[in-house]
């Protein structure tokens, strides 16, 4: 009985570390593409109106910060799975 309980505990920990890896890995895909898209469009905008470069950069950074939040949620969940479970 005791060995079974230990095995279950080990299995849970194993699944948690694998899950942390999968969580952060796949969670990083979306924000990466999305923020790159924003950066690309910002470059296009700067090429069209160089005098508004600073406004465009600020808008780009704010948008990227919002789209980054999903990546940070993945990071938080991965850290929780690593250290709490």
């Amino acid at each position, binding site marked *: 009985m005791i060995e079974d309980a230990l095995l279950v505990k080990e299995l849970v920990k194993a699944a948690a570390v694998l899950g942390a890896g999968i969580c952060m*890995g*796949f969670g990083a895909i979306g924000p990466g593409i999305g923020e*790159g898209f924003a950066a690309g469009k910002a470059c296009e905008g700067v090429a069209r109106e160089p005098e508004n*470069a600073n406004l465009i950069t600020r808008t780009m950074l704010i948008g990227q910060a919002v789209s980054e939040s999903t990546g940070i949620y993945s990071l938080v969940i991965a850290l929780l799975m690593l250290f709490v479970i």
Partner: protein
Amino acid sequence: MQIDESVMKMATFFAAALSMGIGAIGSAYGLGYASSKACEAIARQPQESGKIIKMMLIGQAASGTPSIFSLLISFLLLFGPAPKQGLVQVFAILGAGICMGAGAVGPGIGAGFANAEACDGVARMPDSETTLLRVMLMGQAVSQSTSIYALVIAFLLTIV
């Protein structure tokens, strides 16, 4: 649970392959996309080819960073310190490989997209080259932060 040494070795090799194999997809796509746009831009403005190529190379150095992180995790798994033996460690190594591999895909594609638009922009407005370079580097740097989170988690997983 008792885990054989050969099982640990198998897990390490498999994870190293996953990390570099999946991680190369995104960066390669981004680099290729950027160079295709640069070719298009040079075809339109052959006299600005020097500036366009410079922009392309600097941007590609930045958008290749996620795949360099994948390479780093593969190296660490292959040549780094041998992990302890155990069921948790097997899954942690596999998790590190998947984490860095998949985590490098998105930022690679995104940074390549920014690089491509910057090359296009240089062809359209060669005078605002420095501004474009600045905006491109900043955008790429921010879009790579998720790959850095993946790198941190993968580091933590390799030392569990």
